[in-house]
């Protein structure tokens, strides 16, 4: 079932599993799902002790949004490890080359084919995206929002910048590598520094909790945005150029 992975681009599609196996598979999965559904329905709903616990401790968490409180205070360790997961993926897809590490992070050049509409649009859009991203980050303390949402939006700005063609990013540059780890590093630093006041790792002193969470989130936003742009660069397959030439020539003429 996993031994015949096909990419389907150049190899002719292999015939799948024999029909008998498929039917057995469907029956087995259907039986398992039915058992699960029946068990779940028979059980009904349960008491949820964490509902009251989260509500009663929300005031001490430093934020008003319960989801943010869980993510960055009650279960902040999960989020710390989640940032590490993102770093792993960033490292896995990063182009490996030692020479590039001396080049600059952002290089500017004039592309051969310019898209004036996108360029003009970007002048308006980019500042708005950056401000909106900052707002999402700030509002995460009270309303839905937070580091990941803000980072994703910021990454969108980076991707638009890439598509316009003037800028290219080199993620082996020292500045880029700093961006990739700053989220994890600040999280770790804050987590360790609070030991001085509370004696326990990641336990923010109540008066500072809101501030420290914001500091962690700002760093995480930068890292998340950088990693998402890196993922876009790494997964970008050379687009078939011929298809785009048609409409652009009309534009120039």
């Amino acid at each position: 079932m996993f031994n015949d992975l096909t990419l389907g681009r150049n190899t002719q599609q292999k015939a799948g599993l024999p029909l008998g196996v498929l039917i057995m598979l469907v029956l087995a999965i259907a039986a398992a799902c039915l058992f699960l559904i029946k068990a779940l329905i028979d059980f009904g709903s349960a008491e949820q002790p964490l509902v009251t616990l989260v509500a009663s401790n929300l005031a001490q968490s430093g934020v008003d949004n319960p989801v943010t409180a869980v993510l960055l205070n009650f279960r902040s360790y999960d989020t710390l490890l989640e940032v590490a997961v993102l770093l792993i993926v960033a490292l896995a897809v990063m182009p490996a080359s030692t020479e590039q590490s001396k080049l600059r992070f952002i290089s500017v050049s004039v592309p051969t084919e310019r898209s004036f509409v996108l360029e003009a649009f970007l002048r308006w859009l980019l500042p708005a995206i950056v401000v909106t991203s900052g707002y999402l980050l700030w509002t995460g303390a009270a309303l839905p929002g937070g580091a990941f949402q803000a980072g994703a939006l910021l990454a969108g700005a980076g991707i638009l910048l890439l598509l316009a063609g003037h800028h290219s990013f080199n993620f082996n540059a020292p500045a880029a590598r700093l961006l990739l780890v700053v989220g994890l590093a600040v999280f770790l630093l804050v987590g360790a520094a609070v030991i001085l006041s509370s004696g326990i790792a990641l336990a923010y002193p109540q008066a500072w909790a809101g501030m420290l969470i914001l500091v962690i989130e700002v760093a995480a936003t930068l890292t998340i945005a950088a990693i998402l742009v890196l993922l876009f660069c790494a997964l970008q397959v050379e687009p078939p150029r011929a298809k785009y030439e048609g409409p652009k020539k009309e534009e120039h003429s």
Partner: protein
Amino acid sequence: MPISDVSSLLPLLVAIPLTGAIFSVLINSKHGQVLTGLLAALSLVLVICAILLGLPSEGLQSTAAFRYPLAGWQAPLGIALSLDGFSALLLTLTTFLVTVLTFYSAYYFSASPARVRFWPLWWLLVAGINALFLSADIFNVYVTLEIIGLAAVALVALSGNKAGLTAALRYLLVGLLGSLCYLMAVALLYHLYGTLDFAQLAAKADSNPLSWAALALITVGLVLKTALVPLHFWLPHAHGSAPAPVSAILSALVVKASFYLLVRFWMEILAPAVTNDALMLLGILGGLAILWGCIQALRATRLKLMVAYSTVAQIGYLFLLFPLLMSAEGVSESQLAAQHQSALAAVSYFIVAHACAKAAMFIAAGNIIHSLGHDDIAKLQGMAKYMPLSLFTFAIAGGSLIGLPPSAGFIAKWLMLNVAIDTHQWWWVVIILTGGLLAALAIFRVLDLAFIKPEHASEQVVPDNWQKVPVAMPLSGLALALCTMALGFNADLIIDLIMIGGGE
């Protein structure tokens, strides 16, 4: 809240490797990364020594595990780290192997451009493994499983050739599927019991259809990650095509991490939902794994593939733990607890013995590839003359895998046989002995070729592309192999450690 001295050291075991990863991203010069690696390994060793010294001696058996409530929130609201005898043993093993392999990798990757990405991924993998052994929260375990899975895949893909990348992709898909099965079980357990903490779940768990479903999902997911026959198909190629230090840690520790979780769930967290039939089923699969893995190892044409298939067989031995936990009629609670303790001690011993031996074997195989540029078993004839240390390492580690006295492998199998006989399950004795015999055949096939001279003078092959490896590389393998011997003489150390904190 008061936290005892040992507990306060626990977060360091995760923080140190993470810091190591950050610094190896920032400072990506060759010496900077090696220095970071050695410093991180050294501080891990210091921390684990401090923890071991702080553990209660065998006289004072404390029943509660050491706990550290992260962020100051007690479970179920927060996440706790916990440590008992079993996890302390695995953490010590991890630290020891990581230290030796870090030393080895410093040489292995010295000329390779892959080192830039190897070092940060290596430390992230170590952080994931330590975090998994320390975690006391079932959702947190999911995140650590993903760290381990993704970092392992990224390390396998470092080889960069098509076979390696395909193996990595298959490994990744299997790993993601396994994690999702596990996550579904987490959703069910949280719905059922309203907590994610190990100890609180263990106190609340009972036998009902939803618990069975959760246990089944967890078992399928983790067995997929542990590569028990018949879900082992991804392992040989993933372990066989990775760089040597990566293969070593994958075989020695990564598959053990998911096995460790299985033991936690079956013996502790969901123990009331476990039935004798289910235990027997896992045992039968384990028995099949031993035989199938050994036969495939005999048929393998590449050395690393042979070692990888031997891992499939050795995983089978680990799963013999489960039938040995079966409760017979008329056995009292305390007798059953003692039986569980001795079965767990045997399997822990097996984990340690196999981890050291397998890491040594992959290092030896890595040296052979480094020197010859291939690991075709048929072309190894007479190579003992050129690589005496590596083949000597291979022979000692092989002896431990077969279970020859006085190696650790022998003691492990001896302990296991004892429990099997005590519980009147003589058929496992037959399987364990057959497995040892088949493993001996596979290993002697290689040694036989390597240590004899070619029969005809015309076949005297001078190895092409001969490259001498730095002497530190075979030496680190030899150190591990000799450890399996040393452990054979000091069995009490490990067994005493397991007993701390109940182990169960």
